């Protein structure tokens, strides 16, 4: 019962903030709604017993990446509304149709799959989650997924250098 209340409330907020992100006029407000959306998603992770992921979501996403967005928005600090000019070739309605099609398609898959095999806990899995899932995640990261983990770290390093290079001002 409680689980349902939590889920539906969070779902409404997540989607609501998501819609606000893409509809807000002011870019800074957009960024703020994005943060709110991420926080809701973090709580969803807690509901899914993924505490570590939840904290990482807040720490890296909300506290790190979005700050970057805010930084850029403040740096460019536009006087003119960035969307004043519309390319005549733009087909906005088509966008709606495509998005609706996507949603329909995904829903269809879900409904079809759901009707065939209702989602029940996997037969072989233990009834309760392993204690301390941070440990489990860490264990997996450093054993089975060590190579992807290292590749990710190299990717981050490359991205860091690339970002510095791009954002640096050209020397006169």
């Amino acid at each position, binding site marked *: 019962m409680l689980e349902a209340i939590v889920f539906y409330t969070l779902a409404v907020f997540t989607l609501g903030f998501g819609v606000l992100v893409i509809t807000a006029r002011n870019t800074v407000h957009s960024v703020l709604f994005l943060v709110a959306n991420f926080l809701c998603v973090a709580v969803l992770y807690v509901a899914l017993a993924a505490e570590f992921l939840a904290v990482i979501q807040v720490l890296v996403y909300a506290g790190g990446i979005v700050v970057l967005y805010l930084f850029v928005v403040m740096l460019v600090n536009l006087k003119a509304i960035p969307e004043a000019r519309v390319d005549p070739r733009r087909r906005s309605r088509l*966008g709606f149709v495509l998005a609706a099609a996507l949603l329909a398609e995904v829903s269809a898959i879900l409904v079809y799959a759901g009707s065939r095999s209702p989602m029940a806990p996997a037969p072989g899995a233990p009834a309760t989650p392993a204690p301390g899932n941070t440990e489990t995640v860490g264990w997996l990261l450093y054993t089975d997924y060590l190579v992807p983990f290292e590749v990710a770290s190299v990717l981050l390093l490359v991205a860091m250098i690339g970002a510095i290079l791009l954002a640096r001002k050209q020397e006169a």
Partner: protein
Amino acid sequence: MVPITPYHYLVLSAALFTIGVLGVMLRRNVIIIFMSIELMLNAVNINLAAFSQQWQNAIGQVFAIFVIAVAAAEAAVGLGIILAFFRNKDTLNVDEMNTLRW
């Protein structure tokens, strides 16, 4: 009331993903488009976490962490490009980003 199953999370994630798609298709402000992509990545992460719960193992969460790492890299480089572009063209409108060089 039906119990909350991963199924519910999948529907939620699909809806969030669609919102992201809408943002990418409809907005012309490149920063908002970027944020819509973040929304989509988050939708995917919800999926991964839900499956992780479903199968009672942490592999889904590990993948979600990789997604977050990649999103961080993407945001850093993407915003760097946006800044560089803005310095040169004084605009964030994707409709005006129609040349490959300037």
